[in-house]
């Protein structure tokens, strides 16, 4: 089966910033991404949990974005400028994708 290498970018971000991130992604020409709900976590500002949320205003989400390697830099620079200060964590991993024509 034919695969193609790509990058998997995972951004964990506060929910109130979700729309801004979506807009920034769109402006950077990234139209493919998936948003997973987050139930809780812990970081420098302490632990929190969606059930009985305390220290986070409105929870967080995880945004997964699979893109061609050559578009990674643009994605990171354009989009994350907006949200930099709010980013929980941004991580990038290598992956292989099927149905390469989609990318």
């Amino acid at each position: 089966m034919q695969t193609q290498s790509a990058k998997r970018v995972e951004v964990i971000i506060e929910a109130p910033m979700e729309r801004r991130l979506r807009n920034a992604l769109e402006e950077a020409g990234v139209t493919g991404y998936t948003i997973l709900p987050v139930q809780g976590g812990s970081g420098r500002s302490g632990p929190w949990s969606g059930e009985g949320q305390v220290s986070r205003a409105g929870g967080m989400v995880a945004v997964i974005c699979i893109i061609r390697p050559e578009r990674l830099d643009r994605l990171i620079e354009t989009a994350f400028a907006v949200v930099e200060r709010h980013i929980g964590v941004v991580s990038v991993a290598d992956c292989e994708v099927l149905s390469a024509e989609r990318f």
Partner: protein
Amino acid sequence: MEDILALAIDNLVSPIILSFVLGLFAAIARSDLSMPEAIAKGISIYLMFAIGFKGGVSVGDHGIGSTLGPSLVAGVFLAFALPLIAYGLMRVMTRLSPTDAAATAGHYGSVSIVTFVAAASVLEANGVAAEGFMIAIAAAMEAPAIISALWLAARVTKQTRVDTTLLRDMLLNGSIVLLIGAFLIGLSTGQDGLDEIGALIGAPFKGVLCLFLLDMGLIAGRGLRSGKGALGPGAVGFGMVMPMTSAAVALATAMIIGLSPGGTALLMTMAASASYIAVPAAMRVALPQANPSVSLTLALGVTFPFNLIFGIPLYIAAAAWMTGG
């Protein structure tokens, strides 16, 4: 004096307050009792729809009277002024950084709808009438509180560029749209509308409020447990002094515009309560470097229970006393 005490005790043994205490206890004892996020959100949609709708019906029934205009002005004034007072008080009473103080100040300008609802329930149970439009005033206070807080935030961070989309976002905040929308629906469908849907938004209201306060107790308790490091005694003191200060300012304002005893008590409650719905999200965006557990622990863990347990009976008694109601 005895009346205040009787009211306070009466208030304390209501299922509403005891449900909050149960949640608080469960969280502090580290029980795993929890309310699913979706349920808590569903309940708050119900509460806001019901309170808005019933406010609209009541205004439709009794007319807006001559005090709506002045009350609106008063609400907006309070919402602008209270964050500034809160900021000043925090800089004096606590060792919070300017950023944390600015982020927290915004919360004290706007209104905690649940506190409002709890106060309205107590008034109703004691047969004290209040202006029906008070809920609309509460909704109107959100925006100026956020503007005031953003101005503080801009001063603190020495930024000149203010995020203009932020204000728009906050004005279209779901809670505000729902409150005002339900108010208008109640206003236009009137008593007929209430007859149609009263079986949902009328009698079961208080029971639903109990379940919601159970969840609020859980949240407040968890906040206190995990946020206790973030707050010194000064901050905790602020969380109790501030609502009384706000209530005093609101009492004076209400007397100037001539609200009824019930309306005065509600305006005091609105001033005294601290929002944890629209404002926290706005502050996270405007002041990301502030620690969100400080402001939320103060608003939810200190001021909310203070108002619920001591504040509301106090404000009602003070309003009755001062307005001769």
